[in-house]
Protein backbone atom coordinates (compact mmCIF):
# COMPACT_ATOMS: atom_id res chain seq x y z
CA UNK A 1 0.00 0.00 0.00
CA UNK A 2 2.84 2.35 0.91
CA UNK A 3 4.48 1.73 -2.47
CA UNK A 4 1.19 2.37 -4.25
CA UNK A 5 0.70 5.56 -2.26
CA UNK A 6 4.21 6.68 -3.17
CA UNK A 7 3.46 5.91 -6.83
CA UNK A 8 0.28 8.01 -6.74
CA UNK A 9 2.09 10.87 -5.02
CA UNK A 10 4.84 10.81 -7.63
CA UNK A 11 2.30 10.84 -10.44
CA UNK A 12 0.65 13.89 -8.88
CA UNK A 13 3.98 15.70 -8.77
CA UNK A 14 3.86 16.83 -12.37
CA UNK A 15 0.13 16.88 -13.15
CA UNK A 16 0.53 18.34 -16.62
CA UNK A 17 2.91 15.62 -17.73
CA UNK A 18 0.75 12.93 -16.16
CA UNK A 19 -2.36 14.29 -17.88
CA UNK A 20 -0.58 14.39 -21.24
CA UNK A 21 0.53 10.78 -20.80
CA UNK A 22 -2.94 9.66 -19.79
CA UNK A 23 -4.36 11.51 -22.79
CA UNK A 24 -1.80 9.94 -25.14
CA UNK A 25 -2.78 6.45 -23.95
CA UNK A 26 -6.49 7.31 -23.85
CA UNK A 27 -6.71 8.95 -27.27
CA UNK A 28 -4.56 6.21 -28.81
CA UNK A 29 -6.75 3.46 -27.39
CA UNK A 30 -9.96 5.32 -28.29
CA UNK A 31 -8.71 5.66 -31.88
CA UNK A 32 -7.94 1.94 -31.96
CA UNK A 33 -11.36 1.04 -30.60
CA UNK A 34 -12.97 3.26 -33.21
CA UNK A 35 -10.90 1.64 -35.96
CA UNK A 36 -11.88 -1.79 -34.71
CA UNK A 37 -15.48 -0.58 -34.49
CA UNK A 38 -15.36 0.58 -38.08
CA UNK A 39 -13.72 -2.62 -39.30
CA UNK A 40 -15.92 -4.94 -37.22
CA UNK A 41 -19.03 -2.97 -38.21
CA UNK A 42 -18.15 -3.14 -41.89
CA UNK A 43 -17.32 -6.84 -41.72
CA UNK A 44 -20.47 -7.61 -39.78
CA UNK A 45 -22.61 -5.76 -42.32
CA UNK A 46 -20.89 -7.55 -45.20
CA UNK A 47 -21.59 -10.93 -43.62
CA UNK A 48 -25.21 -10.09 -42.90
CA UNK A 49 -25.64 -8.54 -46.35
CA UNK A 50 -24.54 -11.75 -48.02
CA UNK A 51 -26.67 -13.90 -45.76
CA UNK A 52 -29.78 -11.73 -46.07
CA UNK A 53 -29.27 -11.16 -49.79
CA UNK A 54 -29.23 -14.75 -50.97
CA UNK A 55 -27.05 -17.31 -49.18
CA UNK A 56 -28.97 -17.70 -45.93
CA UNK A 57 -26.87 -19.27 -43.15
CA UNK A 58 -26.62 -22.80 -44.54
CA UNK A 59 -27.52 -24.40 -47.86
CA UNK A 60 -28.06 -28.00 -48.92
CA UNK A 61 -27.60 -29.22 -52.49
CA UNK A 62 -27.16 -32.52 -54.19
CA UNK A 63 -23.47 -33.39 -54.18
CA UNK A 64 -21.56 -31.37 -56.80
CA UNK A 65 -24.39 -28.95 -57.62
CA UNK A 66 -22.70 -25.76 -56.42
CA UNK A 67 -19.99 -26.09 -59.07
CA UNK A 68 -21.82 -27.84 -61.87
CA UNK A 69 -25.27 -26.22 -61.66
CA UNK A 70 -26.59 -29.20 -63.59
CA UNK A 71 -30.42 -29.38 -63.65
CA UNK A 72 -30.40 -33.11 -62.99
CA UNK A 73 -28.66 -32.68 -59.62
CA UNK A 74 -31.87 -32.45 -57.63
CA UNK A 75 -31.94 -32.89 -53.83
CA UNK A 76 -32.90 -36.41 -52.82
CA UNK A 77 -35.31 -37.02 -49.89
CA UNK A 78 -36.13 -33.34 -49.30
CA UNK A 79 -39.02 -34.00 -46.97
CA UNK A 80 -36.85 -36.06 -44.60
CA UNK A 81 -34.11 -33.46 -44.64
CA UNK A 82 -36.50 -30.63 -43.88
CA UNK A 83 -38.11 -32.60 -41.07
CA UNK A 84 -34.75 -33.35 -39.45
CA UNK A 85 -33.44 -29.81 -39.96
CA UNK A 86 -36.46 -28.30 -38.26
CA UNK A 87 -35.62 -30.27 -35.09
CA UNK A 88 -32.09 -28.86 -34.80
CA UNK A 89 -31.65 -26.06 -32.23
CA UNK A 90 -31.08 -22.70 -33.95
CA UNK A 91 -33.28 -23.54 -36.96
CA UNK A 92 -35.72 -20.72 -37.80
CA UNK A 93 -37.01 -21.30 -41.30
CA UNK A 94 -36.07 -22.40 -44.84
CA UNK A 95 -36.81 -21.80 -48.47
CA UNK A 96 -36.27 -23.91 -51.58
CA UNK A 97 -34.97 -22.90 -54.96
CA UNK A 98 -34.46 -24.27 -58.45
CA UNK A 99 -31.33 -22.91 -60.02
CA UNK A 100 -29.69 -23.03 -63.42
CA UNK A 101 -27.63 -21.14 -65.92
CA UNK A 102 -29.78 -19.58 -68.62
CA UNK A 103 -29.71 -17.22 -71.55
CA UNK A 104 -31.86 -14.11 -71.28
CA UNK A 105 -32.77 -12.42 -74.51
CA UNK A 106 -34.69 -9.64 -76.16
CA UNK A 107 -35.08 -9.23 -79.90
CA UNK A 108 -31.78 -7.32 -79.91
CA UNK A 109 -29.63 -8.48 -76.98
CA UNK A 110 -28.91 -11.55 -74.93
CA UNK A 111 -26.99 -12.20 -71.68
CA UNK A 112 -26.04 -15.26 -69.68
CA UNK A 113 -27.64 -15.25 -66.23
CA UNK A 114 -28.05 -17.32 -63.11
CA UNK A 115 -31.74 -18.10 -63.11
CA UNK A 116 -33.32 -18.80 -59.74
CA UNK A 117 -36.77 -20.16 -59.14
CA UNK A 118 -37.95 -18.97 -55.76
CA UNK A 119 -41.01 -19.40 -53.61
CA UNK A 120 -41.89 -15.68 -53.29
CA UNK A 121 -43.61 -15.99 -49.90
CA UNK A 122 -41.10 -18.40 -48.35
CA UNK A 123 -38.10 -16.52 -49.77
CA UNK A 124 -39.15 -13.43 -47.80
CA UNK A 125 -38.75 -15.37 -44.55
CA UNK A 126 -35.12 -16.19 -45.36
CA UNK A 127 -33.74 -13.29 -47.42
CA UNK A 128 -34.57 -9.65 -47.93
CA UNK A 129 -34.85 -9.89 -51.71
CA UNK A 130 -38.21 -8.11 -51.76
CA UNK A 131 -36.69 -5.03 -50.09
CA UNK A 132 -34.29 -4.59 -52.99
CA UNK A 133 -37.00 -4.15 -55.63
CA UNK A 134 -36.36 -0.59 -56.81
CA UNK A 135 -38.79 -0.45 -59.74
CA UNK A 136 -41.97 -2.46 -60.36
CA UNK A 137 -43.02 -5.15 -57.92
CA UNK A 138 -41.83 -8.34 -56.23
CA UNK A 139 -42.95 -11.68 -57.72
CA UNK A 140 -46.54 -12.71 -57.05
CA UNK A 141 -46.94 -16.24 -55.68
CA UNK A 142 -48.87 -17.69 -58.64
CA UNK A 143 -47.50 -15.50 -61.43
CA UNK A 144 -45.65 -17.95 -63.64
CA UNK A 145 -44.78 -15.45 -66.35
CA UNK A 146 -43.05 -12.69 -64.40
CA UNK A 147 -39.34 -12.20 -63.83
CA UNK A 148 -37.16 -10.04 -61.56
CA UNK A 149 -33.78 -8.90 -62.86
CA UNK A 150 -30.95 -6.81 -61.45
CA UNK A 151 -30.49 -3.13 -62.26
CA UNK A 152 -27.16 -3.60 -64.03
CA UNK A 153 -28.58 -6.39 -66.16
CA UNK A 154 -31.58 -4.25 -67.07
CA UNK A 155 -29.29 -1.43 -68.07
CA UNK A 156 -27.09 -3.63 -70.23
CA UNK A 157 -30.07 -5.21 -71.95
CA UNK A 158 -31.81 -1.84 -72.17
CA UNK A 159 -35.04 -3.18 -70.74
CA UNK A 160 -37.54 -1.80 -68.22
CA UNK A 161 -40.46 -3.00 -66.08
CA UNK A 162 -43.16 -4.50 -68.30
CA UNK A 163 -40.79 -5.45 -71.14
CA UNK A 164 -40.72 -8.99 -72.45
CA UNK A 165 -37.71 -11.32 -72.03
CA UNK A 166 -37.13 -14.80 -73.37
CA UNK A 167 -35.43 -17.30 -71.08
CA UNK A 168 -33.67 -20.28 -72.63
CA UNK A 169 -32.01 -23.09 -70.73
CA UNK A 170 -31.33 -26.80 -70.76
CA UNK A 171 -34.11 -28.83 -69.14
CA UNK A 172 -33.66 -31.91 -66.97
CA UNK A 173 -34.13 -34.22 -69.94
CA UNK A 174 -31.43 -32.41 -71.95
CA UNK A 175 -33.79 -30.61 -74.26
CA UNK A 176 -33.69 -26.90 -74.84
CA UNK A 177 -36.43 -25.18 -72.86
CA UNK A 178 -37.65 -21.66 -73.38
CA UNK A 179 -40.36 -19.40 -71.98
CA UNK A 180 -41.10 -15.74 -72.29
CA UNK A 181 -41.57 -13.52 -69.20
CA UNK A 182 -42.59 -9.96 -68.44
CA UNK A 183 -40.29 -7.96 -66.19
CA UNK A 184 -42.21 -7.54 -62.93
CA UNK A 185 -39.51 -5.63 -61.11
CA UNK A 186 -35.93 -4.47 -61.16
CA UNK A 187 -33.68 -5.17 -58.20
CA UNK A 188 -30.94 -2.94 -56.93
CA UNK A 189 -29.06 -4.75 -54.18
CA UNK A 190 -25.80 -2.84 -54.37
CA UNK A 191 -24.03 -6.13 -55.03
CA UNK A 192 -22.44 -6.21 -58.44
CA UNK A 193 -22.81 -9.97 -58.66
CA UNK A 194 -26.53 -10.00 -57.97
CA UNK A 195 -27.42 -6.88 -59.93
CA UNK A 196 -25.59 -8.05 -63.03
CA UNK A 197 -26.18 -11.77 -63.34
CA UNK A 198 -29.20 -12.80 -61.25
CA UNK A 199 -32.73 -13.30 -62.54
CA UNK A 200 -35.64 -14.60 -60.45
CA UNK A 201 -38.82 -16.40 -61.48
CA UNK A 202 -41.25 -18.32 -59.30
CA UNK A 203 -40.24 -21.79 -58.18
CA UNK A 204 -43.27 -23.30 -59.87
CA UNK A 205 -42.36 -21.66 -63.17
CA UNK A 206 -38.73 -22.82 -62.90
CA UNK A 207 -39.82 -26.39 -62.10
CA UNK A 208 -42.03 -26.30 -65.16
CA UNK A 209 -39.32 -24.81 -67.37
CA UNK A 210 -36.70 -27.32 -66.27
CA UNK A 211 -39.06 -30.26 -66.04
CA UNK A 212 -38.28 -30.81 -62.35
CA UNK A 213 -41.76 -31.74 -61.23
CA UNK A 214 -41.83 -30.83 -57.53
CA UNK A 215 -38.07 -31.25 -57.06
CA UNK A 216 -35.65 -28.46 -56.20
CA UNK A 217 -31.90 -27.80 -56.33
CA UNK A 218 -31.32 -25.83 -53.18
CA UNK A 219 -32.62 -25.63 -49.63
CA UNK A 220 -31.62 -22.44 -47.82
CA UNK A 221 -31.81 -22.43 -44.02
CA UNK A 222 -32.10 -19.39 -41.84
CA UNK A 223 -30.87 -19.84 -38.27
CA UNK A 224 -31.40 -17.58 -35.28
CA UNK A 225 -27.75 -16.46 -35.33
CA UNK A 226 -24.49 -16.96 -37.18
CA UNK A 227 -23.05 -18.18 -33.90
CA UNK A 228 -25.15 -21.34 -34.15
CA UNK A 229 -24.03 -22.36 -37.63
CA UNK A 230 -21.35 -24.71 -36.36
CA UNK A 231 -23.69 -26.42 -33.91
CA UNK A 232 -26.37 -26.69 -36.59
CA UNK A 233 -23.95 -28.31 -39.05
CA UNK A 234 -22.76 -30.73 -36.39
CA UNK A 235 -26.29 -31.79 -35.48
CA UNK A 236 -27.57 -31.90 -39.06
CA UNK A 237 -24.57 -33.61 -40.63
CA UNK A 238 -25.64 -37.21 -39.78
CA UNK A 239 -28.70 -36.75 -42.05
CA UNK A 240 -26.73 -35.30 -44.95
CA UNK A 241 -24.19 -37.79 -46.23
CA UNK A 242 -21.24 -36.35 -48.08
CA UNK A 243 -21.80 -38.86 -50.84
CA UNK A 244 -25.25 -37.54 -51.73
CA UNK A 245 -25.27 -33.97 -50.49
CA UNK A 246 -23.21 -30.89 -50.10
CA UNK A 247 -23.83 -28.91 -46.91
CA UNK A 248 -22.44 -25.41 -47.29
CA UNK A 249 -22.21 -22.51 -44.93
CA UNK A 250 -22.64 -18.95 -46.21
CA UNK A 251 -18.90 -18.28 -46.08
CA UNK A 252 -18.14 -21.39 -48.10
CA UNK A 253 -20.50 -20.13 -50.78
CA UNK A 254 -19.06 -16.58 -50.76
CA UNK A 255 -15.56 -16.99 -49.29
CA UNK A 256 -14.36 -13.55 -50.40
CA UNK A 257 -16.27 -11.84 -47.58
CA UNK A 258 -14.30 -13.62 -44.85
CA UNK A 259 -11.10 -13.08 -46.84
CA UNK A 260 -11.87 -9.38 -46.98
CA UNK A 261 -12.58 -9.33 -43.24
CA UNK A 262 -9.27 -11.02 -42.51
CA UNK A 263 -7.46 -8.53 -44.73
CA UNK A 264 -9.15 -5.61 -42.95
CA UNK A 265 -8.18 -7.09 -39.58
CA UNK A 266 -4.58 -7.43 -40.73
CA UNK A 267 -4.55 -3.72 -41.62
CA UNK A 268 -5.94 -2.78 -38.21
CA UNK A 269 -3.33 -5.00 -36.55
CA UNK A 270 -0.63 -3.08 -38.42
CA UNK A 271 -2.12 0.24 -37.32
CA UNK A 272 -2.35 -1.18 -33.79
CA UNK A 273 1.40 -1.79 -33.77
CA UNK A 274 2.10 1.73 -35.07
CA UNK A 275 -0.17 3.32 -32.44
CA UNK A 276 1.40 1.15 -29.73
CA UNK A 277 4.88 2.29 -30.72
CA UNK A 278 3.82 5.96 -30.55
CA UNK A 279 2.18 5.45 -27.14
CA UNK A 280 5.15 3.40 -25.98
CA UNK A 281 7.63 6.13 -26.91
CA UNK A 282 5.45 8.71 -25.16
CA UNK A 283 5.34 6.58 -22.00
CA UNK A 284 9.07 5.91 -22.08
CA UNK A 285 9.76 9.62 -22.49
CA UNK A 286 7.54 10.45 -19.52
CA UNK A 287 9.09 7.80 -17.31
CA UNK A 288 12.64 8.70 -18.34
CA UNK A 289 11.99 12.37 -17.60
CA UNK A 290 10.42 11.50 -14.30
CA UNK A 291 13.38 9.28 -13.33
CA UNK A 292 15.90 11.89 -14.46
CA UNK A 293 14.21 14.62 -12.43
CA UNK A 294 14.20 12.40 -9.36
CA UNK A 295 17.74 11.09 -9.68
CA UNK A 296 18.80 12.58 -6.36
CA UNK A 297 15.69 11.38 -4.59
CA UNK A 298 16.10 7.87 -6.00
CA UNK A 299 19.71 7.98 -4.82
CA UNK A 300 18.53 8.85 -1.31
CA UNK A 301 15.94 6.07 -1.41
CA UNK A 302 18.63 3.60 -2.42
CA UNK A 303 20.98 4.94 0.27
CA UNK A 304 18.31 4.46 2.92
CA UNK A 305 18.15 0.80 2.00
CA UNK A 306 15.50 0.63 -0.71
CA UNK A 307 16.41 -2.39 -2.81
CA UNK A 308 16.97 -1.88 -6.56
CA UNK A 309 14.02 -4.23 -7.14
CA UNK A 310 11.74 -2.03 -5.08
CA UNK A 311 12.78 1.06 -7.02
CA UNK A 312 12.03 -0.78 -10.27
CA UNK A 313 8.68 -1.83 -8.85
CA UNK A 314 7.85 1.75 -7.87
CA UNK A 315 8.64 3.12 -11.34
CA UNK A 316 6.67 0.32 -13.02
CA UNK A 317 3.77 0.91 -10.67
CA UNK A 318 3.71 4.60 -11.57
CA UNK A 319 3.67 3.65 -15.25
CA UNK A 320 0.94 1.07 -14.81
CA UNK A 321 -1.25 3.51 -12.84
CA UNK A 322 -0.87 6.09 -15.64
CA UNK A 323 -1.60 3.41 -18.24
CA UNK A 324 -4.70 2.23 -16.41
CA UNK A 325 -6.09 5.74 -16.21
CA UNK A 326 -5.35 6.16 -19.91
CA UNK A 327 -6.99 2.82 -20.66
CA UNK A 328 -10.12 3.78 -18.70
CA UNK A 329 -10.28 7.06 -20.58
CA UNK A 330 -9.66 5.29 -23.90
CA UNK A 331 -12.35 2.68 -23.20
CA UNK A 332 -14.91 5.35 -22.26
CA UNK A 333 -14.11 7.57 -25.24
CA UNK A 334 -13.74 4.65 -27.67
CA UNK A 335 -17.04 3.02 -26.71
CA UNK A 336 -18.79 6.41 -26.76
CA UNK A 337 -17.62 7.10 -30.34
CA UNK A 338 -18.41 3.55 -31.48
CA UNK A 339 -21.82 3.80 -29.80
CA UNK A 340 -22.58 7.10 -31.49
CA UNK A 341 -21.62 5.95 -34.98
CA UNK A 342 -23.25 2.61 -34.29
CA UNK A 343 -26.54 4.48 -34.28
CA UNK A 344 -25.86 7.42 -36.58
CA UNK A 345 -23.75 5.47 -39.07
CA UNK A 346 -20.99 6.76 -41.33
CA UNK A 347 -22.17 7.27 -44.90
CA UNK A 348 -20.06 6.81 -48.02
CA UNK A 349 -22.66 7.28 -50.82
CA UNK A 350 -20.04 8.18 -53.41
CA UNK A 351 -18.29 4.82 -52.92
CA UNK A 352 -21.23 2.62 -53.89
CA UNK A 353 -19.60 1.36 -57.07
CA UNK A 354 -16.50 0.23 -55.19
CA UNK A 355 -18.45 -1.20 -52.27
CA UNK A 356 -20.80 -3.16 -54.54
CA UNK A 357 -17.99 -5.55 -55.40
CA UNK A 358 -17.59 -6.66 -51.81
CA UNK A 359 -21.16 -6.69 -50.41
CA UNK A 360 -20.38 -3.58 -48.35
CA UNK A 361 -23.10 -1.12 -47.42
CA UNK A 362 -22.64 2.54 -48.17
CA UNK A 363 -23.52 3.33 -44.56
CA UNK A 364 -21.31 1.70 -41.94
CA UNK A 365 -22.66 1.24 -38.44
CA UNK A 366 -19.74 0.82 -36.09
CA UNK A 367 -19.73 -2.04 -33.59
CA UNK A 368 -16.74 -3.47 -31.85
CA UNK A 369 -16.06 -7.05 -30.89
CA UNK A 370 -15.01 -7.42 -27.25
CA UNK A 371 -12.11 -9.68 -28.20
CA UNK A 372 -10.56 -6.85 -30.24
CA UNK A 373 -10.83 -4.40 -27.34
CA UNK A 374 -9.36 -6.95 -24.93
CA UNK A 375 -6.57 -7.67 -27.40
CA UNK A 376 -5.79 -3.94 -27.79
CA UNK A 377 -5.82 -3.29 -24.04
CA UNK A 378 -3.62 -6.28 -23.24
CA UNK A 379 -1.16 -5.39 -26.02
CA UNK A 380 -1.07 -1.78 -24.82
CA UNK A 381 -0.55 -2.75 -21.21
CA UNK A 382 2.15 -5.32 -21.97
CA UNK A 383 4.02 -3.22 -24.49
CA UNK A 384 4.08 -0.02 -22.47
CA UNK A 385 5.01 -1.89 -19.31
CA UNK A 386 7.78 -3.62 -21.22
CA UNK A 387 9.00 -0.31 -22.63
CA UNK A 388 8.99 1.35 -19.21
CA UNK A 389 11.15 -1.50 -17.90
CA UNK A 390 14.17 0.27 -19.34
CA UNK A 391 13.88 3.53 -17.36
CA UNK A 392 12.78 1.54 -14.32
CA UNK A 393 15.82 -0.72 -14.62
CA UNK A 394 18.01 2.34 -15.09
CA UNK A 395 16.61 3.82 -11.87
CA UNK A 396 17.16 0.59 -9.97
CA UNK A 397 20.75 0.35 -11.22
CA UNK A 398 21.69 3.85 -10.08
CA UNK A 399 24.69 4.10 -7.82
CA UNK A 400 23.48 5.87 -4.67
CA UNK A 401 26.56 8.08 -4.36
CA UNK A 402 26.44 9.33 -7.95
CA UNK A 403 22.67 9.80 -7.76
CA UNK A 404 22.76 11.75 -4.48
CA UNK A 405 25.42 14.14 -5.77
CA UNK A 406 23.66 14.47 -9.12
CA UNK A 407 22.84 18.13 -9.74
Amino acid at each position, binding site marked *: *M*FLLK*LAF*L*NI*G*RNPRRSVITVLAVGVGLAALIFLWGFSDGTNEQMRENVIRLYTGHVQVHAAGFEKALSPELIIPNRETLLKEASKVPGFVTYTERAKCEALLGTSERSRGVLLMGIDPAQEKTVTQLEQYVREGAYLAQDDKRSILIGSRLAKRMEVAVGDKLVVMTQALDGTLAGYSYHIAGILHTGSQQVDEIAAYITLESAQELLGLGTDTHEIVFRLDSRKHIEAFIKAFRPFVSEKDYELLTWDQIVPEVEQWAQWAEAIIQTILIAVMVVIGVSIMNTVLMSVFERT*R*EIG*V*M*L*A*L*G*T*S*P*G*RVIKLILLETIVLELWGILLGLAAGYAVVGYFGTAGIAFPELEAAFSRSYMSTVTYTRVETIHVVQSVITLLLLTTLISLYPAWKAG*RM*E*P*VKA*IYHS
Partner: protein
Amino acid sequence: MSAKPLVQVRNISKTFTGNSLPVHALKDVSTEIAAGDFVAFCGPSGSGKTTLLNLIGCLDRPSSGEVFLDGEEIAHYDQGKLSKLRLHKIGFIFQDFNLIPTLSALENVEYVLWLQGVSAEERRRRAIEVCGRFGIEKLVDRRPSQLSRGQQQRVAVARAIVHKPKIVLGDELTANLDHKTGATLMDFLKELNANEGITFVYASHDPVMIERANRVIRMQDGAIVS
Protein backbone atom coordinates in the same frame (compact mmCIF):
# COMPACT_ATOMS: atom_id res chain seq x y z
CA MET B 1 37.18 1.08 22.86
CA SER B 2 35.51 -2.38 22.76
CA ALA B 3 37.44 -5.45 21.72
CA LYS B 4 35.85 -5.63 18.30
CA PRO B 5 35.51 -2.28 16.47
CA LEU B 6 32.24 -1.49 14.73
CA VAL B 7 34.05 -0.22 11.65
CA GLN B 8 37.39 -1.40 10.37
CA VAL B 9 39.00 0.13 7.31
CA ARG B 10 42.13 -1.64 6.10
CA ASN B 11 44.42 -0.20 3.45
CA ILE B 12 41.64 1.16 1.32
CA SER B 13 42.16 3.21 -1.79
CA LYS B 14 39.54 4.77 -3.97
CA THR B 15 40.27 6.00 -7.46
CA PHE B 16 37.63 7.74 -9.57
CA THR B 17 38.05 7.20 -13.29
CA GLY B 18 36.02 9.24 -15.68
CA ASN B 19 36.68 10.90 -19.00
CA SER B 20 39.55 12.88 -17.49
CA LEU B 21 42.61 11.66 -15.59
CA PRO B 22 42.04 9.26 -12.66
CA VAL B 23 41.51 10.94 -9.30
CA HIS B 24 42.95 9.17 -6.25
CA ALA B 25 40.43 10.18 -3.60
CA LEU B 26 41.77 7.81 -0.92
CA LYS B 27 45.25 6.35 -0.69
CA ASP B 28 45.92 3.35 1.52
CA VAL B 29 43.73 4.49 4.40
CA SER B 30 43.32 2.41 7.55
CA THR B 31 41.33 3.22 10.67
CA GLU B 32 38.88 1.80 13.17
CA ILE B 33 35.76 3.17 14.83
CA ALA B 34 34.46 1.69 18.04
CA ALA B 35 30.81 1.17 18.85
CA GLY B 36 29.37 4.14 20.73
CA ASP B 37 32.02 6.54 19.44
CA PHE B 38 31.30 10.09 18.27
CA VAL B 39 33.77 10.70 15.46
CA ALA B 40 34.40 13.68 13.20
CA PHE B 41 36.28 13.51 9.89
CA CYS B 42 37.77 16.87 9.16
CA GLY B 43 39.96 18.32 6.49
CA PRO B 44 39.81 20.67 3.54
CA SER B 45 37.62 20.07 0.49
CA GLY B 46 38.97 17.20 -1.58
CA SER B 47 40.75 15.62 1.38
CA GLY B 48 38.69 12.41 1.01
CA LYS B 49 36.43 12.65 4.08
CA THR B 50 33.16 12.30 2.14
CA THR B 51 34.60 9.40 0.12
CA LEU B 52 35.61 7.62 3.33
CA LEU B 53 32.19 8.29 4.83
CA ASN B 54 30.53 6.83 1.71
CA LEU B 55 32.66 3.70 1.92
CA ILE B 56 31.87 3.20 5.60
CA GLY B 57 28.20 3.82 4.77
CA CYS B 58 28.26 1.06 2.12
CA LEU B 59 27.23 3.61 -0.49
CA ASP B 60 30.33 2.89 -2.52
CA ARG B 61 32.98 0.20 -2.80
CA PRO B 62 36.73 0.73 -2.48
CA SER B 63 39.10 0.27 -5.44
CA SER B 64 41.28 -1.82 -3.14
CA GLY B 65 41.45 -2.71 0.53
CA GLU B 66 38.85 -3.96 2.97
CA VAL B 67 35.96 -2.37 4.84
CA PHE B 68 34.36 -4.22 7.75
CA LEU B 69 31.07 -3.10 9.21
CA ASP B 70 29.94 -4.92 12.31
CA GLY B 71 32.22 -7.79 11.32
CA GLU B 72 31.03 -8.04 7.71
CA GLU B 73 33.50 -7.44 4.91
CA ILE B 74 31.56 -5.39 2.39
CA ALA B 75 34.05 -4.63 -0.39
CA HIS B 76 32.69 -7.42 -2.59
CA TYR B 77 29.00 -7.13 -1.71
CA ASP B 78 26.60 -6.49 -4.58
CA GLN B 79 24.09 -3.62 -4.53
CA GLY B 80 21.33 -5.81 -3.13
CA LYS B 81 23.43 -6.95 -0.14
CA LEU B 82 24.76 -3.46 0.44
CA SER B 83 21.26 -2.03 0.43
CA LYS B 84 20.13 -4.61 3.00
CA LEU B 85 23.13 -3.75 5.16
CA ARG B 86 22.37 -0.03 4.95
CA LEU B 87 18.73 -0.66 5.76
CA HIS B 88 19.40 -2.51 8.97
CA LYS B 89 22.64 -1.12 10.32
CA ILE B 90 23.12 2.43 9.10
CA GLY B 91 21.30 5.72 9.45
CA PHE B 92 22.07 8.66 7.17
CA ILE B 93 21.74 12.38 7.73
CA PHE B 94 22.42 14.11 4.43
CA GLN B 95 23.78 17.61 3.98
CA ASP B 96 20.50 18.87 2.47
CA PHE B 97 18.48 16.43 4.60
CA ASN B 98 17.10 14.98 1.34
CA LEU B 99 13.64 14.22 2.63
CA ILE B 100 11.27 12.64 0.13
CA PRO B 101 9.26 15.69 -0.98
CA THR B 102 5.96 13.92 -1.71
CA LEU B 103 5.76 12.26 1.71
CA SER B 104 4.71 13.95 4.94
CA ALA B 105 7.23 14.38 7.77
CA LEU B 106 5.80 11.31 9.52
CA GLU B 107 5.90 9.21 6.34
CA ASN B 108 9.51 10.23 5.81
CA VAL B 109 10.33 8.93 9.27
CA GLU B 110 8.25 5.80 8.67
CA TYR B 111 9.92 5.11 5.33
CA VAL B 112 12.84 3.02 6.59
CA LEU B 113 10.55 1.03 8.88
CA TRP B 114 8.34 0.31 5.86
CA LEU B 115 11.39 -0.94 3.97
CA GLN B 116 12.11 -3.23 6.92
CA GLY B 117 8.63 -4.67 6.69
CA VAL B 118 7.35 -3.28 10.00
CA SER B 119 3.54 -3.28 10.20
CA ALA B 120 1.74 -0.01 9.47
CA GLU B 121 0.50 0.32 13.03
CA GLU B 122 3.87 -0.39 14.61
CA ARG B 123 5.83 1.91 12.33
CA ARG B 124 3.38 4.73 12.92
CA ARG B 125 3.70 4.27 16.66
CA ARG B 126 7.50 4.28 16.52
CA ALA B 127 7.70 7.20 14.12
CA ILE B 128 5.37 9.33 16.26
CA GLU B 129 7.38 8.45 19.35
CA VAL B 130 10.67 9.52 17.72
CA CYS B 131 9.10 12.70 16.33
CA GLY B 132 7.86 13.47 19.84
CA ARG B 133 11.42 13.26 21.17
CA PHE B 134 12.47 15.92 18.67
CA GLY B 135 9.49 18.14 19.36
CA ILE B 136 8.04 17.84 15.89
CA GLU B 137 4.97 15.77 16.74
CA LYS B 138 2.67 18.62 15.69
CA LEU B 139 4.32 18.92 12.30
CA VAL B 140 4.07 15.30 11.24
CA ASP B 141 1.43 15.86 8.57
CA ARG B 142 3.37 18.60 6.82
CA ARG B 143 5.33 18.08 3.64
CA PRO B 144 9.07 18.93 3.77
CA SER B 145 8.42 22.07 1.73
CA GLN B 146 6.14 23.29 4.54
CA LEU B 147 8.88 22.91 7.16
CA SER B 148 11.73 25.25 8.12
CA ARG B 149 15.35 24.11 7.63
CA GLY B 150 15.61 23.35 11.34
CA GLN B 151 12.40 21.32 11.32
CA GLN B 152 13.53 19.42 8.22
CA GLN B 153 16.79 18.64 9.97
CA ARG B 154 14.92 17.16 12.94
CA VAL B 155 12.83 15.01 10.60
CA ALA B 156 16.04 13.86 8.90
CA VAL B 157 17.58 12.91 12.25
CA ALA B 158 14.38 11.14 13.30
CA ARG B 159 14.50 9.19 10.01
CA ALA B 160 18.13 8.27 10.62
CA ILE B 161 17.56 6.80 14.08
CA VAL B 162 14.00 5.48 14.03
CA HIS B 163 15.12 1.96 13.06
CA LYS B 164 17.80 1.91 15.77
CA PRO B 165 20.84 1.59 13.50
CA LYS B 166 24.31 0.64 14.74
CA ILE B 167 25.85 3.72 13.22
CA VAL B 168 24.62 7.09 11.96
CA LEU B 169 26.63 8.88 9.28
CA GLY B 170 26.35 12.55 8.43
CA ASP B 171 28.01 14.61 5.76
CA GLU B 172 28.43 18.32 6.45
CA LEU B 173 25.45 18.12 8.78
CA THR B 174 25.40 21.75 9.68
CA ALA B 175 26.65 23.29 6.46
CA ASN B 176 23.26 24.67 5.51
CA LEU B 177 22.18 25.67 8.97
CA ASP B 178 22.71 28.82 10.97
CA HIS B 179 25.02 28.52 13.94
CA LYS B 180 22.27 28.18 16.55
CA THR B 181 20.35 25.50 14.66
CA GLY B 182 23.58 23.67 13.92
CA ALA B 183 24.50 23.71 17.59
CA THR B 184 21.06 22.41 18.58
CA LEU B 185 21.47 19.53 16.11
CA MET B 186 24.81 18.61 17.64
CA ASP B 187 23.20 18.68 21.10
CA PHE B 188 20.59 16.22 19.85
CA LEU B 189 23.17 13.89 18.40
CA LYS B 190 25.38 14.03 21.50
CA GLU B 191 22.38 13.23 23.65
CA LEU B 192 21.47 10.23 21.49
CA ASN B 193 25.08 9.09 21.57
CA ALA B 194 25.25 9.36 25.32
CA ASN B 195 21.80 7.93 26.14
CA GLU B 196 21.36 5.28 23.48
CA GLY B 197 24.92 4.43 22.56
CA ILE B 198 24.40 5.16 18.85
CA THR B 199 27.71 5.56 17.04
CA PHE B 200 27.94 8.84 15.11
CA VAL B 201 30.43 9.57 12.38
CA TYR B 202 30.27 12.84 10.50
CA ALA B 203 32.36 14.82 8.07
CA SER B 204 32.74 18.53 8.63
CA HIS B 205 35.10 21.40 8.21
CA ASP B 206 33.33 23.59 10.73
CA PRO B 207 35.72 23.90 13.74
CA VAL B 208 32.81 24.33 16.19
CA MET B 209 31.24 21.07 15.08
CA ILE B 210 34.55 19.26 15.04
CA GLU B 211 35.20 20.31 18.66
CA ARG B 212 32.06 18.45 19.77
CA ALA B 213 33.46 15.08 18.64
CA ASN B 214 35.00 12.58 21.05
CA ARG B 215 37.51 11.72 18.40
CA VAL B 216 38.71 13.66 15.36
CA ILE B 217 40.24 12.03 12.28
CA ARG B 218 42.10 14.63 10.23
CA MET B 219 42.52 14.02 6.51
CA GLN B 220 44.49 15.59 3.73
CA ASP B 221 45.00 14.58 0.09
CA GLY B 222 43.24 11.25 0.53
CA ALA B 223 45.16 10.17 3.60
CA ILE B 224 44.64 10.25 7.37
CA VAL B 225 47.16 12.64 8.86
CA SER B 226 46.22 12.38 12.53
